[in-house]
Each structure stands twice: as C-alpha cells, then as structure tokens.
C-alpha cells in the first residue's frame, strides 16, 4: 500500500504534475484509517490517534523522500460523514486534526486542503491554522464573495471551487466580468463522453 503510493507519486512527477494531493477526506481509505469506528486494527496502524494517523503520515514521509515534501498536499474533512464514516467523539476528532496538522507541519508539506462543513467547530479550524504554518486551502459551498472574505480575514490562503468550475470552464473570467454562471447538469456528472463535460458554454 505505502509503496504503491510512493511509486504513484513518482509517476505523477514523471507525468509533469507540480505535486500530488493525498485524499485523506470523504471516506476513502486514508479517512477509513483515521476513523476509530472503521479502523479496528490491532497493529501499529490501529488504536490510538497516533496509530490511526500513521498510515497517512508514513505515506507522506515516504513520498517526500522521493519527490520532496514541498510537492505534497493533503485533503481532510473533519466531521464529515460522507462514505458512511461514523461521527466520533468531538474532543477526539479535534485532537486528531490538531495532531495531524502539527505532524504535517514538521514534515514540511505544501498545503492542507480543508473540505469545510458547518459541523466543524471554530476551535478545530483555529488549531489547524495555529499548528500548520504553510498554505491552507478551503473548499465547499463557497461563492466568490464568501471566498474573498476567507482570504481577507486570513483563514484561507487559497480558495477552491468544485461545481462552479465543473459548469463554468471560464469561472475566473466570469467572476472578473461579473457574468452569470452556468448551472450544473447533475445528470452528466459521471457519464462517459463530452456531454456535460467539455461542452459547457464559454463566454465569447
């Protein structure tokens, strides 16, 4: 598992990427490891917070040896239940992400990308910000206005948009020109072919 991530990261650099982001969010294997209800392991990758964070941190450490920590980012989604991830004790959740943020800071990675939700207490945001000195990206439900406010108040360095980019290839230009946005076609999110993929309208 760990070596496959390392090879994949090296392949990504070979393919011309500027870096890799580990998906530690939304219920996939790395978040399955973080969660005490899904991770019932009895080896060094299960049990207390350090052990549940170990897989993600070991992968990053090994990848960093090969491509450099400055080319690695991580996405996390504290308090998310996507992917049938059961919520767990708030204090333990906060400690998990505070610990991760400080370990990721030691490792010197490029960024933490937070898949935000109203369920995340202010305290968790603050702990991540104070334990991690490099770039923070925020995402989820942002509008150009709320995103700009996040940069102004210092809570985010960069702001990410999902569905807005999906439906508006020229999203940045539309913000600049104050042009209307296209709607997302939810029927074609995952269907093969160009319909609802490369054929969204672009401003002249």
């Amino acid at each position, binding site marked *: 598992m760990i070596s496959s991530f390392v090879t994949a990261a090296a392949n990504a650099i070979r393919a011309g990427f*500027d870096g890799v982001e580990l998906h530690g969010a939304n219920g996939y294997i790395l978040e399955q490891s973080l969660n005490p209800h899904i*991770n019932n392991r009895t080896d060094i990758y299960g049990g207390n917070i350090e052990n549940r964070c170990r897989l993600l941190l070991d992968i990053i450490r090994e990848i960093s040896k090969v491509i450099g920590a400055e080319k690695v980012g991580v996405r996390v989604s504290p308090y998310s239940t996507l992917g049938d991830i059961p919520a767990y004790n708030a204090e333990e959740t906060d400690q998990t992400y505070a610990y991760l943020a400080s370990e990721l800071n030691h490792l010197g990675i490029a960024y933490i990308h937070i898949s935000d939700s109203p369920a995340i207490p202010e305290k968790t945001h603050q702990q991540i910000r104070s334990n991690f000195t490099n770039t923070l990206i925020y995402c989820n439900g942002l509008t150009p206005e709320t995103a700009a406010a996040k940069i102004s108040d210092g809570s985010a360095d960069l702001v990410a948009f999902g569905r807005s*980019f999906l439906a508006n290839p020229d999203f940045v230009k539309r913000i600049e020109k104050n042009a209307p946005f296209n709607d997302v076609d939810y029927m074609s999110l995952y*269907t093969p072919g160009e319909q609802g*993929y490369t054929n969204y309208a672009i401003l002249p």
Partner: protein
Amino acid sequence: MKQLFSSYTKGVLQLKNRVVMAPMTRSRALNNLPNELMATYYKQRSGAGLIITEGTSPSPEGLGYPRIPGIYSDAQVDGWKMVTKAVHEGGAKIFLQLMHTGRIAHIANLPEGYHPVGISDIKAAGEIFTDKEGMQEHAVPKVWILTESSI
C-alpha cells in the same frame, strides 16, 4: 473580490491567482486511462491558479468507481502527460489527487483479478454504481495486511 485575483507565491505554489479548481471525479477515463478529452476539459479550466485533478488511484485495488483514472502504469503516465502539458500551456499549476477508494468500491469496477482492500473488513452502508451490474452494495473489503512487500 480583488483578493481572489492576487498572485500567490509560496514554495512550489507559484500561482497567478488564489482560485483553485477542486478535485472532482468525472468518470471519463475509459479503461482507467487519461485521454485527450480529459486534457481538453482541464485546459478549458486553466484560468484557475491551481487545478487539483479528480481522484486518481495509486493501484488497481483503489479503483472503486467506474472509469476513474490510475497512475500506476506507463500508459497512464503517458495519458497524464497530455493533461499536464495542456494545463501548463494555459498558465495553471496542477496537482494530482491520489485517491485510493478502499471500501468504497465494488469488485465489478476493478480490473480483472483484483479485489477491494480496506483498513478493516467493515463494509460501508449503501450502494455504488457499476457499469457491468448497475447499483450494487459496497464490497466487503479484504483487510490490508502489513507484509514486507506491502510496506
């Protein structure tokens, strides 16, 4: 809104603006191979300072969804080269999201001979789409075993 358009420079993140395209699975990678259509899609969106790609699997076991790309074969690396070239021409930086789906998977979505692998054998509630068999319950994953070779 000026804040969004200011450039950002920290480490490898030398970005023309603060606007990032979030990772989004789009299931256009037939046979788990990045292709020209995907290069067009990402190039169209290279007005972003930074693009983070759709979740991409580091191994065949992590390909839980239909038609998602991988980054473990030379053919996949060659496909992704088209994407990174197109995006760089558009002036954006691009990171690859490494997504191993773990238990969010069904065997029908994996290449022949592979089985979903998880942190534990606890199955996820709910169903997942497969091309071959429509909606199916999530797999009971095989537990990832720590061996010399799997480290």
